[in-house]
């Protein structure tokens, strides 16, 4: 440990493995860097938000050519959850769908009908937050890997 309380930095290879792990599953990057408590707590919050989103019928954003900017922002928020988002899309839309097809397509109908469900608004917010929180975790994993976070309590 350094004199200022910061943890020793990981090697560049370890850092990239940690970032990749964090992108694959929320909180896993911390576990690669042996920051168990931090990983379980922050990863658990992302997973909890994602689970609440799906449980409340949150809408998994699709890029809408008629509203490209806003729908792309929504999509970017969702995709931050990583492969969990992909798995949810396969479960909800029957495949890895990211673009809103013609209104008569079954995916568009699923998308619209899900939006009309009573708790969908809440669920959508939870899903966005889960994705955005996971992006922040990746930046934090990078800082932890560089030894920029104190190691007191290894939390």
């Amino acid at each position, binding site marked *: 440990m350094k004199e200022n309380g910061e943890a020793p930095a990981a090697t560049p290879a370890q850092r990239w493995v940690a970032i990749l792990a964090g992108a694959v599953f929320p909180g896993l990057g911390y576990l690669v860097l042996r920051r168990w408590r931090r990983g379980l*707590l922050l990863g658990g919050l992302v997973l909890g*938000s994602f689970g*609440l989103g799906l449980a409340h019928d949150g809408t998994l954003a699709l890029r809408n050519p008629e509203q490209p900017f806003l729908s792309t922002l929504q999509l970017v928020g969702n995709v931050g959850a990583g492969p969990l988002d992909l798995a949810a899309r396969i479960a909800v839309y029957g495949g890895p769908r990211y673009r809103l097809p013609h209104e008569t397509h079954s995916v568009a109908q699923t998308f619209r009908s899900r939006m009309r469900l009573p*708790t969908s608004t*809440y669920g959508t917010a*939870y899903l966005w*937050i889960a994705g955005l929180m996971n992006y922040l975790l990746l930046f934090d994993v990078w800082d932890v890997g560089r030894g920029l*976070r*104190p190691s*007191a309590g290894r939390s």
Partner: protein
Amino acid sequence: MIRSHLVHLLLQSAMLSTFFAVLLHDEPKRRKRFGGILFAALTLGTVILATLMAPFPR
């Protein structure tokens, strides 16, 4: 599933304030203080904003 606006507000505020408190601060005392302030700001801010917006129609 939960259909109460207030319960969702409290739940989401609790999750976000815990997240940012752990992410941004390392000392337990500072985490609690920051988390408490953020939780209060999120919940009270939303209630105040909602109250101010209530008279306006959609």
